[in-house]
């Protein structure tokens, strides 16, 4: 099955990877985005992800469909977490299977880049100093003064 989904609980990467099974595939590339404990020099304690679900699902589905037409892949799938995440948790999972590794690497990279640009999901970082803030795609704060 190929699809984009939102997940309110921990992402099971091994279960997701089974969606990529294809006897014709000779390569599988998976990208996992993890919550790190720092951003722009500040200590981060946790993240919240908020999604506009109907549009996130349709936009994510379009990205995967585009990937399948742009690259010679067998299957492509992606999952994004929502809600509150601790350091080290998986925020996003992208997986691609293809006959050959070039297409698998290229498609996986393209998909995660498009997700970050287009899918209506927002990240709120909670800092060790008690402040929090919504981020832009380049990880800079939305409100200049914080």
């Amino acid at each position, binding site marked *: 099955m190929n699809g984009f989904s939102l997940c309110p609980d921990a992402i099971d990467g091994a279960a997701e990877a089974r969606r990529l099974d294809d006897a014709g595939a000779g390569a599988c590339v998976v990208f996992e985005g993890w919550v790190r404990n720092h951003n722009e020099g500040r200590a981060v304690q946790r993240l919240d992800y*908020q999604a*506009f679900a109907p549009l996130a699902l*349709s*936009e994510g589905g379009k990205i995967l469909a585009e990937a399948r037409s742009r690259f010679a892949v067998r299957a492509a799938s992606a999952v994004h977490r929502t809600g509150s995440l601790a350091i080290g948790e998986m925020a996003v999972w992208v997986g691609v299977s293809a006959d050959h590794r070039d297409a698998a690497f290229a498609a996986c990279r393209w998909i995660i880049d498009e*997700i*970050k640009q287009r899918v209506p999901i*927002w990240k*709120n970082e909670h800092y060790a100093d008690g402040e929090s803030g919504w*981020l832009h795609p380049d990880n800079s704060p*939305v409100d200049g003064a914080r």
Partner: protein
Amino acid sequence: MKFRLLYFASLADRAGCAEESIDSAAGDPAVLYEEVRQRHEFTLERARLRVAVNGRIVAWDHRLQDGDEIVFLPPVSGG
């Protein structure tokens, strides 16, 4: 016309709510955004946003209809 507005991320924080129903004579999302921007003191310029009507991304001059659900989308930061 009556519209339902949904807010996310920094716009929800500024507005102090995740959604509201409003009456407005705005004919397109560009005019509507300026109205709510002044009322809620949003700092994001319209040029930084996208807009969705009834779950679909539309142009800023999209003609609004009574009962539309409108979402002003701040720059996204998933991944």
